[in-house]
């Protein structure tokens, strides 16, 4: 089973009829491809990014100006992040439209929802990192909105202990963005795919 999953997400023998694109439009697969692109470009961005309020913006300007492929890689990271959220939203819609959230696939629906929220949060934490005016004020707005929620003040105190743009806050957003959330997202994605594979026989294309 594990070996099967490692080698083929789908069984070795599938009817041609059942490989039709319209079953899923491959939206989940495309979203995961975006995630891989984000991981790769993000890893390269890590070589030059400096997570301090005084150094962050300059390090990104330096990356775009002096590093070969810097502007391209940063744009790719940004565009892939937009594409990921769009594809995840469409994937969720497809699941709702086809009723794929019903029993016995409830577990995967819950895991998928968690992934959707985590990816949105991942995008939000990445938004602050360039430390330009847009990043600063967008994050400030988000953190002010949080006050309206129950326990919002406590979450805010954990996320931005010294206010948006403070050294500790930037470092926390950075840690969440490059380590904590990606780790959880990739683990949950593996669970997501494992459950699809385990439920073979349930669907025409598995």
């Amino acid at each position, binding site marked *: 089973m594990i070996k099967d999953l490692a080698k083929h997400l789908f069984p070795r023998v599938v009817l041609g009829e059942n490989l039709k694109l319209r079953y899923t439009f491959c939206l989940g697969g495309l979203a995961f491809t975006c995630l891989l692109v984000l991981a790769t470009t993000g890893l390269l961005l890590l070589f030059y990014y400096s997570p301090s309020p005084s150094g962050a913006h*300059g390090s990104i300007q330096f990356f775009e100006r*002096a590093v*070969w492929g810097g502007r391209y890689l940063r744009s790719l990271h940004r565009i892939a992040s937009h594409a990921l959220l769009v594809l995840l939203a469409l994937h969720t819609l497809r699941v709702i439209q086809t009723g794929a959230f019903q029993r016995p696939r409830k577990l995967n629906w819950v895991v998928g929802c968690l992934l959707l929220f985590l990816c949105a949060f991942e995008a939000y934490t990445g938004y602050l990192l360039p430390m330009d005016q847009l990043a600063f004020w967008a994050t400030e707005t988000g953190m002010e909105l949080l006050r309206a929620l129950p326990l919002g003040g406590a979450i805010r105190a954990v996320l931005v202990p010294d206010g948006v743009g403070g050294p500790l806050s930037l470092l926390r957003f950075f840690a969440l963005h490059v380590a904590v959330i990606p780790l959880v997202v990739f683990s949950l994605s593996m669970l997501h795919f494992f459950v699809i594979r385990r439920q073979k026989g349930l669907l025409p294309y598995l």
Partner: protein
Amino acid sequence: MANVPRTRRAALEAIGLAALGAAGLWRFLTPRAGTVDATPEALRIREEEVPSEGALVLPQFGLAVVRRGTEFLALDLACTHLGCTVTANAGGFACPCHGSRFSASGDVLNGPAPRALHQLAIERGGGVLRVPRGRGASGKVACVHGAPEGREA
């Protein structure tokens, strides 16, 4: 893995691709050395660095150097409205914050900016321009990257 062709050609292609990847990674990891000599107070820019059409824009130092015939003009990139760093475009400069537009010589074309872009004093000598750093680079959020001297482009 049974279907992977184990031919000499495939091996050579794989080695070629790996070499290309390694070369790209090497180039990525060795950033271009800068041509602007920067000290904390001023920049030294060689005159031939300034293009005859357009301007040498140095957002990391908050200034742009414009050639006007045989004369040079150094403009502070801090918008005279609320201090955002303006960006260079084909016709001059534009402020991303509130839409002010400036001509290539820094005069206000439209928008909320009340005055032309601040001009910085240039000292010329021996084909080298000595320009003080602009205010645009010392704002609260946009800061100068602490790269080693001479690494800035």
